[in-house]
């Protein structure tokens, strides 16, 4: 084991404690950066601990890295990043997410609005929804292949399954939580039927619906890897399986990092929705 990663990690931890004593406000990125540095150092230390020397026939010794280090991962990613391989796989994954998640929204939100509003519909469908919900999308893989083949359809189906239940459940909860006073006001001013839904029920439930979309998109992105491992020949999930089969663990780690970064991007995009005038009222300002 080498000493530099340990020293750097200790320095970063020391910085975190030092920052508490500073009187001037420190830059916002300083602490997250320090935590990131510690993480990378731990990765390095871990990878080194898994390396070993092999004595060769000619008497010389060779160091074998069974796990990639951060440096090896970065080096390995240079080529697929520059030749567009990563971009191509990312776009493939995102398109599948768009299709599966879009379908889940198109079905989940109206169904949730309906079941949240009508007690009878709720009582009718809720037991089924709650029974299907805990079944992992992974469990559906067999049927996905049976029904949709080893094609995009299978992956989209799995992503749809992973996100539709949080959306339905979240939307139902959102509608049921609408304060009575809004519905009474609306009725008082003669709103009924579809207009009541469009002008009051939907906007009143929207902040909580946005929150459920955020959760659902997070789950969908988690499932993309599993969905692409079995069913297709492109996408970041495929890249992981493919690199593993080729024994290129640095590429596996690189693809994992890409999934993490794109996940941050997706979450950030949905969070932008929370700042729209129509839903901002539903999100109490939390101190940054």
């Amino acid at each position: 084991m080498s000493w530099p990663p340990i020293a750097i990690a200790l320095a970063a931890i020391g910085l975190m404690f030092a920052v508490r004593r500073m009187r001037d406000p420190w830059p916002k990125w300083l602490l997250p950066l320090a935590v990131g540095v510690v993480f990378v150092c731990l990765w390095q230390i871990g990878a080194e601990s898994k390396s070993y020397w092999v004595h060769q026939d000619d008497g010389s010794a060779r160091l074998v890295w069974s796990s990639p280090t951060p440096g090896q991962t970065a080096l390995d990613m240079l080529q697929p990043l520059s030749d567009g391989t990563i971009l191509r796989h990312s776009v493939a994954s995102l398109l599948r997410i768009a299709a599966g998640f879009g379908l889940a929204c198109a079905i989940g939100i109206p169904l949730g609005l309906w079941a949240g509003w009508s007690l009878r519909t709720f009582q009718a469908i809720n037991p089924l929804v709650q029974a299907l919900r805990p079944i992992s999308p992974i469990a559906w893989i067999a049927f996905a292949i049976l029904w949709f083949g080893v094609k995009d359809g299978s992956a989209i189906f799995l992503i749809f399954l992973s996100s539709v239940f949080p959306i339905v459940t979240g939307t139902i909860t959102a509608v049921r939580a609408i304060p009575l006073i809004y519905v009474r006001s609306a009725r008082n001013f003669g709103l009924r039927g579809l207009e009541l839904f469009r002008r009051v029920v939907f906007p009143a439930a929207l902040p909580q619906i946005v929150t459920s979309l955020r959760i659902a998109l997070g789950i969908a992105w988690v499932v993309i890897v599993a969905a692409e491992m079995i069913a297709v020949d492109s996408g970041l999930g495929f890249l992981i399986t493919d690199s593993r089969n080729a024994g290129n663990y640095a590429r596996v780690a690189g693809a994992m990092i890409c999934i993490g970064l794109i996940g941050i991007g997706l979450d950030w995009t949905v969070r932008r929705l929370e700042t729209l005038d129509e839903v901002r009222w539903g999100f109490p300002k939390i101190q940054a």
Partner: protein
Amino acid sequence: MDTASATALPAPKVRIAEVGMVFQRKRDELHVLDRISLDVRAGELVCILGVSGCGKSTLLNIVGGFEVPTSGSVQIDGKPVTGPDPRRVFVFQEYGIFPWANVWNNVALGLRDKPKDEQARITRHYVDLVGLTGFEETFPNELSGGMRQRVALARALAVSPDVVFMDEPLGALDSLTRLQMRAEILRLWQRERMTILFVTHDVDETIQLADRIVVMSPRPARITEIVNVPMAHPRDIGSAEYGRIKNRLYELLGVSHAI
């Protein structure tokens, strides 16, 4: 023509006849209202005064058509009330304005069936009337409590209701804003001359606003007494008449106001 009909008392705008309300609970029943009868004339401002939890809001919800009484009936303009109606508008303590819509769209809520230019004209008029000019694009969360209540008032008045139900509309405001809003409500009432049923537990509020004060007993609520306020607006809160009525109200509520 017929002198008899010309001199007869006009039919009451709101007639509450023997209204009783019993809520079914898990183990027992909760008697809330006990045979309440009350007539309100058109253009009258009647306050309903009672301690918290006495059932005065329930009564207002029944008259407004949100709840169905266990017994008795409510008639407005001689017709039984079967549900909420845009001609009779509710103003709630928690405002009930929509946080997802700006001031302008909130006020315009009840004008959907009118032509666009008329919608704009009426909305403009009531936004100005309650002093919210310049806040048309503002969302309720960015307004103070008093301004939100003004939005609720403007929204209610915009549909030219002939009855306005107010359920402790000023309860959530600080005492100074409450005074201002009382004056505002009086000004609007004197202008538009609609019938107002105003529920509150604030004794001074009733004397400052009402033509008549309906004092209710604790649950199950009955009408203890109806107190007339024969004072012209603006009312002098330091006058002997004011003090006399105030004493009488505290007496009827069973509270001593000398502490």
